[in-house]
């Protein structure tokens, strides 16, 4: 069983891989005895590895929280930047509002909850609703008629 010449890295890798497999499958008690014989205290290793894992866990959670906070702030900024110059006339605003509902009919029930016909909505109601739609970014997503 001669040692193979030529591929030294492969020889080394086979020895290390076999030792790793042994570490993976050796009885736990044997690993602890080996550690003691090597002058290592398994209790200290336990504390150290757990501490390493805890700090990794904590760092990960903090990263997730930071990212969530950044995302929330980005969303807030997007909403507050959703400033729209609404049409100057009530007729123009009504035209925008109807265009929005026409292109996003799923929004219709939200504005007719009180069994009101859209024609019942006052100019103030329409302006207020348009501002909400702008803040939610809905107006950015639809094609709005030109102001006359």
């Amino acid at each position, binding site marked *: 069983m001669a040692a193979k010449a030529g591929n030294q890295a492969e*020889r080394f890798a086979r020895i290390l891989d076999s*030792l790793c497999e042994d570490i993976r499958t050796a*009885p736990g008690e044997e690993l602890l005895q080996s550690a003691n014989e090597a002058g290592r205290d398994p209790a200290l290793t336990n504390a150290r590895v757990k501490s390493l*894992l805890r700090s990794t866990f904590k760092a990960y959670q903090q990263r997730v929280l930071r990212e969530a906070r950044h995302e929330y702030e980005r969303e807030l900024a997007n909403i507050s930047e959703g400033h729209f110059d609404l049409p100057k006339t009530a007729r123009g605003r009504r035209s925008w509002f109807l265009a929005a509902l026409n292109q996003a009919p799923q929004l219709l029930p939200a504005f007719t909850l009180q069994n009101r016909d859209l024609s019942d909505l006052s100019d103030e109601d329409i302006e207020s609703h348009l501002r909400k739609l702008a803040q939610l970014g809905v107006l950015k997503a639809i094609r709005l008629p030109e102001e006359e």
Partner: protein
Amino acid sequence: MKVKPKPPSAALQPQPAARGEIDQAIEALTEEHTERIEQTALNRIYRIGRAANGRSHDDLIQEALTRILDGKRQWYKDRVLFPDFLIGAIYSIASEWAGHRERNAEDPEYAALEAALSKTDEEGKTTSPFDGLQDPSVNPEQGLITAEEEEEKRALVEEILTAFKDDEKASIILMGFEDGMGVPEIRAEFQMSEKEYRTTMRRIRWRVGKMMGEHHGR
């Protein structure tokens, strides 16, 4: 009336462990578990050598846990114990690092400068590491690094074998490993009892671990 069987509800489908469950699993790690985790991570760092690129076995353990937490590696707690899963992740990430280095051998993060590798002989003459390389198709820098690594690995293997030259059983096992033999094969071929094998492996693990630690400045 036939009743059409319902597909299993989502609640019954195995779900990857939640972060809270991973946290509990960390707290439940015993000394045996942490010893196995630590030794595996050390072994893998020694095994991949320069591909670790300055990263330690602690980095490897942390990377394994991070990948479990972010779901890149999903732990199903009903299928495998957490320590075994973490060890599997450690093993696989080390292989990934080694593979990355193999694919990017010429990347500056792995390559060493010629100047750093030049040597001055006893007469004060500086020789380039590229002197004497004969194959012009091989990147000389890379060729040198490969040759250096081969030499380094050869020396380590020789050091290991020499350390056990008076230990017949250990020598047999190590040469079996070198030849790619599995444990049952080695034990059968050399009629080694389970007890003999385990006792010998303890000696090998201890001594090789010590050697590798010294080699890596631990």
